[in-house]
């Protein structure tokens, strides 16, 4: 502030008669009282807004695809070392719960997705097929790792199935030995895209050769 500038008193009105203030206040009160003889209506326009939001126009396919996509429950099928990467994917660091698929079901009847994680031997193959058959439609299969895709290093072996697609139809193949959890999560997002594009009319997993 410059030296010698006039001092201003803030907040103190000048030359106002207190009586005038009282009169003005009374006038405002009387006016408000006269204009407030009827109660204000309760705000109910939000009801209309909610109604607007609740009426969605979509297709059944899109809605079912959306709901399937966000509640894909995988069935436990860890066969070999890939299973540990699958477990890591479900744990806190990679956190499959982000996609609504944190519940690894022990029962195939409650599952939508079978992650075949590891080497499939011929002795295990009937079990895999049986669990696949027990899963309810619609169902998806993800082949995880080199062994599940093609038999991997054991392809020429006497006891290993050279690729689980000999037993069940496979939707997504995730390569790696074993794949990192990021890879598995990427494969699962591809499964999600398939789910959101699937149709109600489509019968999935119907394998003429086996059933």
């Amino acid at each position, binding site marked *: 502030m410059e030296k010698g500038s006039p001092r201003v008193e803030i907040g103190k009105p000048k030359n106002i008669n207190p009586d005038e203030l009282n009169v003005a206040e009374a006038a405002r009160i009387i006016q408000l009282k006269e204009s407030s003889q009827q109660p204000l209506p309760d705000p109910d326009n939000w009801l209309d807004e909610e109604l607007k939001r609740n009426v969605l126009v979509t297709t059944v396919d899109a809605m079912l695809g959306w709901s399937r996509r966000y509640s894909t429950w995988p069935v436990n099928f860890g066969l070999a070392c890939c299973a540990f990467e699958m477990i890591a994917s479900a744990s806190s660091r990679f956190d499959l719960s982000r996609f609504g698929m944190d519940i690894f079901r022990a029962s195939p009847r409650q599952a939508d997705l079978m992650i075949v994680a590891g080497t499939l031997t*011929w*002795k295990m193959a009937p079990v895999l097929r049986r669990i696949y058959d027990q899963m309810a439609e619609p169902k998806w299969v993800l082949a995880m790792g080199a062994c599940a895709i093609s038999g991997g290093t054991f392809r020429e072996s*006497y*006891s290993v199935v050279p690729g689980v697609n000999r037993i069940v139809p496979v939707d997504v193949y995730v390569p790696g030995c074993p794949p990192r959890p990021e890879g598995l999560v990427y494969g699962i997002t591809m499964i999600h895209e398939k789910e959101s594009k699937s149709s109600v009319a489509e019968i999935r997993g119907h394998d003429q050769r086996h059933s």
Partner: protein
Amino acid sequence: MTTVFNVEYAAKKIIEAFPDSVAVVVKVAVVVNSNSLYQVAEFLKDTSGFEFDYLNNLTAVDYIDYFEVVYNLNSLEHNHSLVLKTRCYDRNRPVVPSVISLWRAADYQEREIYDLMGITFEGHPNLKRLLLWEGFMGHPLRRDYL
């Protein structure tokens, strides 16, 4: 720590108890004839000073001329170990006596060897394939299996 039992001494004691039972003594193991294997195993398990009461591992090797069955024995009492071996030369029908009545751990191991090597363990109560399925042709860990 587990000490390795003196192989020469073990062989000497076995020969004292069962003459003609030891085929050859190699650097790390006593190789006995298969027809006296059970008596030797029983002797090694029950004789004080040996007391090999624990069968660590039981496996077999195909040396083309013969099969060699390997017993890795341990004593929890004395904390020492010994390798016992036996050989069977008949490729078409290799037979070894079962030691399941001495060590229960031999059960699955003998079944695995029967499955993959085709060695019959005489006296095993449930000798059938362990890893492969019934009806599998051949024994895949044999050197002549293709």
